[in-house]
């Protein structure tokens, strides 16, 4: 079998595509999906998860440490059960505090973990006891208006000095 100019061109074509793929893999994208084997599961119950979605990031001190794996509604406690997969490299104390934050004013929601002071660490299948629900904007505005109204009512009710 002899080499020919055609082989050279096919070689160049394949090599160029491999370079393009490598560029797409290394420079353009990231393997953000932490592999399931390298994680442990933690459950957390929230009164209200707002607009939290599956695959939402889990951050601690702003660093990505895991992802939300599943969200279920528990019809006995009427709470949302959120399963979190945390990277094996990171350990959190038993009394870690989980809250739902919003990235930016209108950004996506994520779970924030604030470690407590316990000496024992959360293991696979454990549950976070202390949680804080998402802030629902409508509720917040409603509370604000209500308190304003109460204030002005209190002002008018108080006798003039």
């Amino acid at each position, binding site marked *: *079998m002899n080499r020919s100019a*055609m*082989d050279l*061109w*096919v070689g*160049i*074509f*394949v090599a*160029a*595509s491999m*370079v*393009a*793929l490598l*560029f*797409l*893999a290394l*420079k*353009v*994208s*990231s*393997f*953000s*999906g932490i592999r399931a084997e390298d994680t442990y599961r933690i459950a957390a119950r929230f009164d209200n998860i707002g607009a939290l*979605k*599956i*695959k939402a990031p889990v951050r601690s001190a702003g660093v990505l440490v895991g992802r939300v794996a599943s969200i279920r509604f528990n019809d006995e406690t009427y709470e949302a059960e959120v399963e979190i997969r945390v990277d094996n490299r990171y350990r959190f104390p038993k009394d870690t505090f989980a809250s739902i934050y919003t990235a930016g004013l209108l950004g*996506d929601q994520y779970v924030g973990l604030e470690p407590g002071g316990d000496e024992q660490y959360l293991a696979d299948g454990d549950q976070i006891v202390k949680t804080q629900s998402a802030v629902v904007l409508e509720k917040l505005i409603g509370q604000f208006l209500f308190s304003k109204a109460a204030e002005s009512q209190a002002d008018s009710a108080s006798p003039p000095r």
Partner: protein
Amino acid sequence: MTRLAVVFAAVFRRIGRETIDRVWRLGYASRFFLALLCRSGAVCARHRLLFREVWFSGVLSLIIILVSGLFVGLVLGLQGYEILQRYGSAQALGTMVALSLLRELGPVVAALLFASRAGSAITAEIGLMKTTEQLKAMDMMAVDPVARVVAPRFWGGVISMPLLAALFSAMGIFGGWLIGVVLIGVDDGAFWSSMQASVDFRHDVWNGLVKSFIFGAAVSLIAVFEGYDAEPTAEGVSHAITRTVVTSALAILALDFVLTSFMFRGVS
């Protein structure tokens, strides 16, 4: 009154005939596809033929794919910047360019170009072989034309298409970078890091490749089938080439909708 009835009857007869004809061709194409798959073993044995087809449909399409990719990227960069800077988020330009190229434009536009550049050439080649009775002559010499002529062209297209789509996307992202960072002055670091943060290899790059693989199989199958099924006249071959381009374009766009709807649904 009776004249109207006659006209209606003629119209209905025509619609019926066309429908039956289409279904007939679809069945024939499916049988052809099966036969093609069964006789593809010879391609491995004679990889020289396959190499020639990768060269023919891949290497020769390289220029048009690269240049179009670059220009699509340039346009995306300009338009994307124009829209994003209104909301003060010009940093997201990289994300926008990369995601729209990897998920949709890369596979679809590369496949459309591939259909008109390589698909039409394959149809013309096989159609002319049929017209000049080369396929019949092969049959007479106990050389199976499906294994010798059709299968290498089909597999050459299937192999080339994902590679071309990857090149198209990479070139487009380079074009977007050229406009966004070099010309307009979006921050270089923000461009790449926002892109990396929101493009996932498995979800976006890999699904785009799967898409282009499926498009490649569809376009190659349509091209070889139309060539093989062409009426053996000059007019028949020209009709077959037209049908290749039209059917491929429709198939690509319809398949793209179907694939997108179950690849990228629900997960942002």
